[in-house]
């Protein structure tokens, strides 16, 4: 019957972070050389793998557009990803909604008019879920698209923030996510425009703006890490060019 507190008297969270600290964020690009594009993201214990295939000929012909490409997203949540070992199906309504949200977000970012009558497939594998899954999926997709060499307008960077009583917290883990109200926000890395926002719990309107700002600041931090990772991975390619 241990007692769980979100912030200790000293202002530390249950994993030892302070309110304004993110978990370790690591990203690796091109880890699957056989695929068009791939990326692997670790945010603390949350681990997401993304594979991008395409542009290629659409599998479902009816979905093809004459003027642009379309993005097909599939999320596969591994049954061992959470503490409760549970099989999740692709037909799960929540997963489908998230796929759709990702699809819409990235169709805005990818320069779709360059590849008419074609399809870009994004396969996301959630290997471990310790909070901020949707945010990690978005970050992984951005990197994998870049790895695949598909022209995008900007980085899409995403992070979460929440509020307990009146204390704000950045980047929640799964324990915290289940205990308080929180928000996922994705921004364009360069121009800081919000392109995606998701709130599944209820949050008082007074706090919304400050929590959003917090999440945006977190996204900027992720942007910096992602950009240096991209530059790092591009180095061998650039070297071979010159």
């Amino acid at each position, binding site marked *: *019957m*241990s*007692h769980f507190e979100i912030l*200790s*008297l*000293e*202002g*530390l969270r*249950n*994993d*030892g*972070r*302070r*309110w*304004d*600290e*993110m*978990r*370790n*964020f*690591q990203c690796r690009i091109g880890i699957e050389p056989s695929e068009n594009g791939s990326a692997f993201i670790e945010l*603390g*214990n949350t681990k997401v793998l993304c594979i991008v295939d395409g542009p290629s000929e659409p599998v479902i012909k009816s979905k093809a557009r004459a003027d642009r490409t379309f993005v097909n997203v599939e999320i596969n949540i591994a049954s061992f990803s959470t*503490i*409760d070992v549970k099989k999740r199906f692709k037909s799960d309504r929540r997963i489908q909604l998230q796929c759709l949200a990702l699809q819409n977000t990235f169709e805005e970012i990818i320069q779709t008019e360059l590849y008419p009558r074609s399809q870009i497939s994004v396969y996301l594998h959630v290997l471990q879920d*310790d909070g901020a899954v949707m945010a990690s999926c978005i970050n992984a997709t951005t990197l994998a698209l870049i790895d695949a060499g598909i022209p995008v307008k900007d980085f899409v960077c995403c992070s979460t923030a929440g509020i307990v*009583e*009146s*204390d*704000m*917290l*950045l980047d929640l*883990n799964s*324990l915290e996510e289940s205990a308080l109200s929180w928000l996922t926000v994705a921004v364009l890395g360069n121009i800081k425009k919000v392109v995606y926002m998701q709130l599944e719990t209820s949050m*008082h*309107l*007074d*706090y919304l*703006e*400050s929590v959003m*700002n*917090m999440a945006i*600041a*977190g996204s900027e*931090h992720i942007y910096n890490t992602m950009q240096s990772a991209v530059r790092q991975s591009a180095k061998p390619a650039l070297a071979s060019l010159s």
Partner: protein
Amino acid sequence: MSTVSGLKRPQSSEKNHRDRVFVRATRGKVQKVVREQYLRNDIPCQSRACPLCRSKLPKDSRGNVLEPILSEKPMFLEKFGHHYLIPDSNIFYHCIDALEHPNNFFDVIILQTVFSEISSKSIPLYNRMKRLCQEKTKRFTPFSNEFFVDTFVERLDDESANDRNDRAIRNAASWFASHLASLGIKIVLLTDDRENARLAAEQGIQVSTLKDYVQYLPDSEILLDMVSAIADAIASKEQVESGTKNVYELHWSMSRLLACIKNGEVHKGLINISTYNYLEGSVVVPGYNKPVLVSGRENLNRAVQGDIVCIQILPQDQWKTEAEEIADDDEDVVVSTAAEPDSARINDLELITKRNAHPTAKVVGILKRNWRPYVGHVDNATIAQSKGGSQQTVLLTPMDRRVPKIRFRTRQAPRLVGRRIVVAIDLWDASSRYPEGHFVRDLGEMETKEAETEALLLEYDVQHRPFPKAVLDCLPEEGHNWKVPADKTHPLWKNRKDFRDKLICSIDPPGCQDIDDALHACVLPNGNYEVGVHIADVTHFVKPNTSMDSEAASRGTTVYLVDKRIDMLPMLLGTDLCSLRPYVERFAFSCIWEMDENANIIKVHFTKSVIASKEAFSYADAQARIDDQKMQDPLTQGMRVLLKLSKILKQKRMDEGALNLASPEVRIQTDNETSDPMDVEIKQLLETNSLVEEFMLLANISVAQKIYDAFPQTAVLRRHAAPPLTNFDSLQDILRVCKGMHLKCDTSKSLAKSLDECVDPKEPYFNTLLRILTTRCMLSAEYFCSGTFAPPDFRHYGLASPIYTHFTSPIRRYADVLAHRQLAAAIDYETINPSLSDKSRLIEICNGINYRHRMAQMAGRASIEYYVGQALKGGVAEEDAYVIKVFKNGFVVFIARFGLEGIVYTKSLSSVLEPNVEYVEDEYKLNIEIRDQPKPQTVQIQMFQQVRVRVTTVRDEHSGKQKVQITLVY
């Protein structure tokens, strides 16, 4: 808008980041859990003396720097030097009372390891430790040693969790020692564990047991008494272990209990000890429509009032009726551990087959203890005078009659005679007749007003410490000079109506200082009436999420004692700024109705306002003014309108089936100078009392409807559930036998009607008496959050209203503060604060204020009871009384003039020969044959009978305490 300043980079080196992996079993499943843990290097040592850690001080999300706590010049002792203390978990677990002592133990570091060990053992204790850390004067600080890279320890392969925690504590202590060495501050590790102490000493840490440490402190004698009996017990356990005989049956093991609850062999429930007999308790168990009785010391098997117990039902031939005998106060006093055969105290269990036999049971185990500190006095007979200053074992007689005597050891026994003291129970072994405890505090001499009041407040858990500075800081800066801004364009006037020209007055009890309601009425041009109820706008001053708000929430209500008032809000607000005093302008929250001739509501309107009360009446003054036909000014006429409408409203309410229940309310007349009680009088009710009451009820109902419409899930309402019919069973039976009457209790309406009909022309007081007894069958009303019950259950049974809340006394009740905030949001005056739309939080608050409300009521009653006793002191009064309960060896009488209940023992009826008593159970009757000379006679006592009693006070030899004694005059 807030901006996020400089996010810190994560620390990503391998060393500082690890996963905690553990396996847990929930609901039959085994799960592997992986949690991250970041080890930091920026945790400050919290010492004000330390220049190194100054730069590491963290900020919270509102930008406040968390200042270090530990003093730069801590306590100095010859043996240890200037030092901070690090107690281990067991010290907190067993001896928190000593650590909480206000004049000892400062500069204490509570390690995270200790916190987490305690939180898994006892949440209340954990909360007490947290409170200690928040108290600025004690300088207790938490230290997150598990997140600190220098103090973190990994559990070794062959190490138990306990050993690892001990090692973590030692590591942290040695880190502190070396960290603070240059500053000349030492560390003392407090532990009673010998092995731990040895290992610590090897590491070069100063270590001491609590007992040894305390000996160096100035108040060592008191503190030593506060060191729990458990610590001693653990120490001596190794030596004794066997050889003592068990007085009680051993409790079953927890796993056996749980298994037996599942298969129905035993039942669990909360035990309620009878106030008349501390050796009899009852447990309400599903499956039995009557409470299950547990009687006798063996059957109770160490259960204490309020414990959650497991009971096993006894065979049917041992079932019996409720409480046939009253237990005497003066029990045989035995201090030795050896078990004494129980003397003739316990009823000789006759085999009775009775029509209303209760099932009986015995306690086989205790799931959850409800121990708290108990107030009482030392039983003088147990103190050995000769022993002087050495330690001895004495017994405490608790104030609460339902609690058994508590044995504790003390070195200050002679000094404790005649004092009110607090003792906590530590353990109750099967081999010990009494529970064992330790001394906590001395409240002062018995029978003095201060000590008795303090005792009362402690017994009923009333928060009565002075308001801390943080709360007082929330008050307006202007203090008593605060005024409503003259300029009507001032932001405070926004959305506020100007009612200063309305003829508003307040009617309250004489001498009332916290006036929270005022009224007005006038005739509208269309012939209808405009009626306004104006309530002090407390929420203008008490904003959510301030320390004043949380203090008010934790106090829940103002507590009224006879000579003292424990305020919920600071004086400045309660008696001045929020009090709707006459001739000054005040902010108010107004509820305005338009009513027709028959008091039907045509329109209702709520608004924040500014009012200026024209007069503050007492009930009697208001009555006199209304009755005086010479007064024809508009204010008086308005009051007449109010009175007229209130009578119609009352009639309507009665027709709906509202209950008119009586409770014995008395007023203590006190001497103005010394506030010593002089006389007792029954409260008088005037028409003006009911005038105010009716409009307050109306306002509450209107507000309840409004906030429920606006917030169907989270409105704070008040409900009063209909009592189950079985509650009336025994009363019905008594009525049938003694008076040949019957109550219809299926609805409140029929109950109200049949109560009116139950009149005995020969005994005019009988009806009131019956109403008092009926009230005792009722359930109590409670606050709740509208989302937790279905709308039909919102009903207020006593008031016969489908929905109800408390709105009219925000100065003295926290529920009203919540209702004010919700109403303000409902009329779009302000946006709702998040805390008021969070259902789980509101449920928590409601539970809290329900508890406080109950406790405040009981404290108020106990205070009156005490003062009635004081008023009677020295005098002898003969009074009329009524029999309200009959036992085998005595009966309980109710003395209407004092609102006092008392026991008359049959043996007190004669002085020489004990009277022969025949108890006719079926008729609730005692035939007492008095054999004393000069005139032997037989006295009959029956339920509801009027008797003449003599009330005196006597000095109890054991306690040296004044006791009210009631004897029958025949």
